């Protein structure tokens, strides 16, 4: 019996942050009260806000519980520092957890998911089945099993889900 839990997430907020020319990740992190990682990583701060490194000078801002003013508040805090674009409806989020979650990911993405390389807090932007994905690893669950979250474009979600269902069926 495969140990895999697939959850389609809702109620989250997601926005892209792109630093203006010459603005450091440090300045962005200070403005938001959460570390803005210089490498592909998932950093969770206060106020249920996390930043995920998606490129040099670019991040995803993520919250589990979105409010109507979430993205405008983010934009106000980053005025003059970065461009903020709300993507809460542009991406779908799916969570994979359980002992077999890593196997499923490893069958889709050509990057190393070994725990020594892709530990909790790691993130990567890559492709699965030719579909662009951003993957980050949360803290393990209470039983020490890994927990990954994957963001993919809404318009590609059905195709991604098909890949996931076929791959999970083969476990």
């Amino acid at each position, binding site marked *: 019996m495969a140990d895999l839990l697939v959850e389609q997430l809702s109620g989250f907020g997601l926005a892209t942050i792109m630093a203006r020319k010459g603005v450091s990740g440090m300045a962005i992190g200070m403005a938001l009260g959460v570390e803005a990682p210089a490498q*592909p990583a998932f950093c969770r701060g206060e106020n249920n806000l996390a930043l995920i490194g998606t490129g040099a000078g670019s991040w995803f801002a993520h919250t589990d519980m979105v409010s109507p003013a979430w993205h405008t508040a983010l934009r106000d805090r980053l005025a003059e520092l970065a461009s903020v674009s709300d993507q809460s409806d542009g991406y779908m989020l799916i969570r994979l957890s359980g002992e077999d979650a890593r196997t499923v990911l490893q069958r889709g993405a050509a990057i190393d998911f070994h725990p020594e390389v892709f530990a909790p807090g790691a993130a990567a932007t890559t492709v699965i089945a030719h579909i662009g994905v951003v993957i980050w690893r949360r803290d393990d669950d209470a039983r020490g099993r890994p927990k990954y979250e994957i963001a993919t474009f809404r318009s590609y979600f059905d195709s991604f889900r098909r890949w996931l269902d076929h791959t999970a069926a083969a476990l």
Partner: protein
Amino acid sequence: MRIDCPYCGERDAQEFVYRGDASLMRPESEDGMADYVYLRDNLAGPMTEHWYHAQGCRTWIAVTRDTTTHAMLGAIFARDGVR
């Protein structure tokens, strides 16, 4: 071939878009423009090229590799070095 992206780490070449020789400089005048656009050295050995990491960090990088062995000799953000 795997490419060492300075941001993402080692990735499959399929994630990248190839542009070509990173050493070319756009001429100031029309003289030399035809060579700039069309004339390429077909180097066998170490060469620095521009690659765009379209399926990753969406950044232009300058990759130095050996064209005969595909060995990676280094990669930097294009904005930090050769243009």
